[in-house]
């Protein structure tokens, strides 16, 4: 298990670092522009708050985007949600299936290894990569605030970044479970699952009757508009993790007896 973990980490850390640095650099550049927008933002808050469906979709009616924290929560939050979600989905969907897709399964499973142990090593490596990505991005975000002359609301920032980490991990675990059923890397499926969950969260913001779907999509509880000034959405987090862990458990059970 340990050696599989190390192998996955070594094989994945460079791509993760590039991905994290790209997201982080984007955040820094967005926040570097904040002082230029600050004045106009103040005048536009009223407009943003009253744009109907558009305001609801992105939570503009719940947050003050004229503040640095609100501005970061909206701009940075969306970028981190999508980019981090994509990374988690693409890495998760490939991490098991790539052994068959790249035909290295013969080498790996020709060694005396329990499949469960291989899968555990891969899952832990996936979690470590997602965690590292979030840590790097968090450091960039803190840098971004210091460049913008602070304005950081520590509690909101902590809730946002913690929710994002939990959301990325949930997407990764869900896609890991799906990966066990696949014969080859199906990156398109991973992206599709991630986008479906994201779009679902947008619709929940618009149509209140869809609120129960917030228990299915992690993008809902990770939305800055839903954590700013309030507690984290533990009920939705618990439900989402139950779903993702169930998918992972089903994947592991299937993979134990799968024909490779």
């Amino acid at each position, binding site marked *: 298990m340990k050696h599989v973990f190390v192998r996955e980490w070594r094989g994945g850390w460079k791509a993760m670092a590039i991905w994290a640095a790209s997201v982080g650099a984007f955040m820094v550049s967005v926040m570097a522009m904040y002082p230029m927008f600050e004045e106009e933002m103040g005048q536009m808050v009223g407009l943003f708050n009253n744009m109907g469906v558009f305001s609801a979709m992105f939570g503009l009616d719940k947050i003050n985007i004229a503040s640095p924290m609100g501005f970061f929560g909206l701009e940075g939050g969306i970028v981190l949600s999508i980019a981090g979600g994509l990374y988690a989905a693409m890495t998760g969907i490939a991490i098991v299936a790539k052994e068959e897709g790249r*035909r290295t399964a013969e*080498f790996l499973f*020709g*060694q*005396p290894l329990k499949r469960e142990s291989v899968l555990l090593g891969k899952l832990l490596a996936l979690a470590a990569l997602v965690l590292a990505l979030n840590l790097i991005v968090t450091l960039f975000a803190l840098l971004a605030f210091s460049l913008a002359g602070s304005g950081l609301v520590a509690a909101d920032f902590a809730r946002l970044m913690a929710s994002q980490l939990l959301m990325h991990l949930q997407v990764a675990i869900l896609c890991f479970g799906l990966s066990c059923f696949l014969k080859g890397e199906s990156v398109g499926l991973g992206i599709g699952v991630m986008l479906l969950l994201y779009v679902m969260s947008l619709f929940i913001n618009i149509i209140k009757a869809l609120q129960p779907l917030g228990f299915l999509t992690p993008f809902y509880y990770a939305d800055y508009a839903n954590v700013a000034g309030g507690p984290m959405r533990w009920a939705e987090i618990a439900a989402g993790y139950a779903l993702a862990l169930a998918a992972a458990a089903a994947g592991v059970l299937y993979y134990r007896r799968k024909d*490779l």
Partner: protein
Amino acid sequence: MPAIRTKNLSKVYRNGRGIHGVDLEVARGDIYGFIGPNGAGKSTFIRTMLGFMQATGGEGWLLGSPVQVNKADNLRPVGYLPGEAIFYKGMKAAEVLAYAADLRQKDCRKKARELAELLDIDLGQKVDTLSLGNRKKVGIIAALQHEPDLYMLDEPTSGLDPLVQRTFWQYIQRMNEGGATVFVSSHTLSEVQRHCRHVGVIREGRLIVSAPVEHFVKTQTRRVSVDGEAAVDDLEGARDVQRHNGHVSFIYQGEMQPLLKALHEGSVRDMTITELDLEDVFGQYYGGQP
């Protein structure tokens, strides 16, 4: 207790192909050649025995342990060389071998170096830049470096040059003399004939025959090659008659007198009578299509 034993073992895919009711026994210390053309079921047999796939029927035992999917302990004393040696991109050959050794929790560095020297390969190269033959060498080292009791080698010499093939077989013979069992699949008949003590012939997933090599080549059946002409078309016991550029070649099974009479009546300038080689035997089992 045999090294490999199967009882009515089947692995049938959805398209109906695979292996069907294979009964096989390979004694410990044997070198067993498993021959058949591509798609005959050689790799399916090996992969089912190693637990890559769930058998759809029958049973198998590897060094006395029942075969089943995901049974790690069965693989501990086994060295497996897949038909295609494919590794992780970006890794150096030495890293691949170290990874394989780590997964087995064994220090195989000394043996890996020795084998690399023997097979003449630089382990500092990245595996994705290696030629097919050199990739095969890395696969061979990965399968041999932990000095297993049972070698399961799927077409081990395909892609290797003749010199390396010879070195490989010399090493395998040495390991066999040390007590290891070798099970090797191949469609290179001369190789099997030269190095194996027992042979199994598989056709369309069914084991047609399993016997000592002598059983195939030391029979009363002979291949006769004649430079000239001989009236053998109606000769009883003659078959597979082929004529080409003033030469006649055929397989003969029967008494010598009728053969000599038929040759005497022809115009024979020169002739050879030899034992069948596995190529001929293979042709018999496959209707002339090895």
